[in-house]
């Protein structure tokens, strides 16, 4: 007897309703007649979120909880990057077998994101009354306040590992949605809690190493880095990255591509050694010389210049699978469902290599396991000895067995 049964469906049909219908039909075929409890859904923003959600709700009925978020670039899976000219739709249907329990919770992110995270976690706790802490939580949230959401969740579930990814669009234009129980929302969070007689957990990997340069943050406001060692952050970043962003350092502009392999990092100490919380610089603002980031930094902390390679971003796929298997103690053939979170900036940077890497590594390491992958604007995962963290340019993998 398995703890859960999962099945995947995807579609490149340009018509949103038909795409959802196709994906659900394919997913249902793999459930062997079992009734799903939760649908983890994703679409690219080419499909209108309200239409997608309505089609999912119509196709699933009212007894299946819907959880998910929009993905950038495409849907990921064993078949590589599933991306069409008119968008992609993906769904994982999850059915709980005897002794296993799945619950969802969601809500809008209010002015105090910590409270929003705590409230959603309380909602989950109430629904799972008597079952104790979840084995793991799958989180999807809008980009912006993930660190605070994690703090709020930890107030209710201090020991539950959280894995997930931030909702995304193609153009970093705020077109993303989180699929909550109430429908798609632009600024919200949604969670799935895995409770009871099952094993769930995962790993978080960012394949970068410090390049040797570092500096102290002398001015920052949440996700805007203003100065490092008393100098404009843009100038310092320009030196650390090299000539590749000279134009943006002078004029301002998008530096996503150039910094995908040259991010910033915050050194933290986990039980397995140093862990670098990686931060992706997104945009340089002139004339201020500030740098917009996809994760928070604070005045007084030290930032390291990090470096990686395109090949490293692909080799991180087998690494995150191996780490997740080791953490959960699951053997390959015991994994019943996998959710892969792959940073959209990394995916954009590695391009076609990702397609090949997913096919090669997932086929070898998790053969036959239902796997749904998202390209996200921030990744969350549990680091042993450090707890749940939000960072960028990372891979997060949740396994359930």
């Amino acid at each position: 007897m398995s703890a859960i049964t999962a099945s995947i469906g995807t579609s490149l049909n340009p018509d949103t309703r038909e795409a959802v219908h196709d994906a659900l039909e394919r997913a249902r075929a793999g459930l062997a007649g079992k009734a799903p409890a939760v649908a983890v859904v994703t679409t690219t923003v080419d499909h209108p979120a309200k239409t997608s959600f309505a089609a999912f709700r119509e196709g699933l009925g009212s007894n299946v909880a819907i959880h998910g978020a929009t993905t950038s670039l495409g849907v990921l899976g064993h078949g590589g990057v599933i991306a069409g000219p008119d968008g992609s739709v993906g769904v994982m249907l999850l059915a709980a077998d005897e002794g296993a329990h799945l619950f969802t919770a969601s809500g809008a992110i209010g002015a105090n994101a910590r409270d929003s995270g705590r409230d959603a976690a309380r909602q989950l706790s109430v629904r799972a009354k008597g079952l104790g802490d979840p084995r793991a939580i799958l989180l999807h949230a809008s980009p912006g306040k993930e660190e605070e959401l994690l703090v709020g969740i930890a107030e209710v579930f201090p020991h539950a590992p959280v894995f997930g990814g931030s909702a995304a669009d193609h153009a970093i234009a705020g077109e993303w949605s989180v699929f909550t129980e109430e429908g798609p929302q632009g600024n919200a969070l949604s969670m799935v809690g895995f409770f009871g007689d099952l094993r769930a957990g995962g790993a978080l990997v960012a394949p970068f190493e410090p390049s040797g340069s570092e500096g102290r943050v002398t001015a920052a406001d949440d996700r805007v880095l203003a100065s490092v060692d008393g100098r404009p952050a843009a100038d310092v970043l320009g030196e650390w990255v090299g000539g590749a962003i000279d134009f943006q350092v002078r004029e301002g502009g998008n530096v996503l591509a150039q910094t995908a392999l040259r991010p910033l990092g915050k050194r933290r100490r986990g039980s397995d050694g140093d862990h670098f919380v990686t931060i992706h610089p997104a945009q340089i603002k002139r004339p201020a010389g500030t740098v917009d980031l996809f994760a928070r930094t604070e005045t007084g902390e030290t930032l390291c210049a990090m470096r990686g390679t395109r090949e490293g971003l692909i080799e991180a796929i087998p690494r995150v699978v191996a780490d997740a298997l080791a953490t959960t103690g699951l053997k390959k053939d015991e994994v019943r469902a996998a959710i892969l979170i792959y940073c959209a900036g990394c995916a954009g940077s590695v391009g076609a290599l990702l397609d090949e890497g997913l096919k090669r590594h997932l086929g070898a390491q998790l053969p036959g396991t239902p796997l749904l992958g998202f390209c996200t604007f921030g990744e969350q995962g549990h680091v042993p000895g450090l707890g749940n963290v939000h960072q960028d340019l990372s891979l997060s993998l949740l396994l359930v067995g």
Partner: protein
Amino acid sequence: MVLKRPDGPATVEGSDAPGRVHRLVGYLEEQHTPFVISRLIMMCGVQVRKCTPLTSEDETTLRRIEAALPTILTPEQTAAAIEVLRRR
């Protein structure tokens, strides 16, 4: 980070060479995959898929697209794509 609103295809009244981005999108989809277009949108911040054969793009938009091409294509592929984009 500070979020911005989506940049649709900027248009110029009376431009004499409409549809250049639309032509580029068609070329890239034919030569590569739809994934390349999604990556281009991410890197330049312009919703190139919304450009039609009748859309006249301003010079700033074209420059942003042009600047993003080397981040997703090889130098040879970039040169060919820019030729397609700039052809009148």
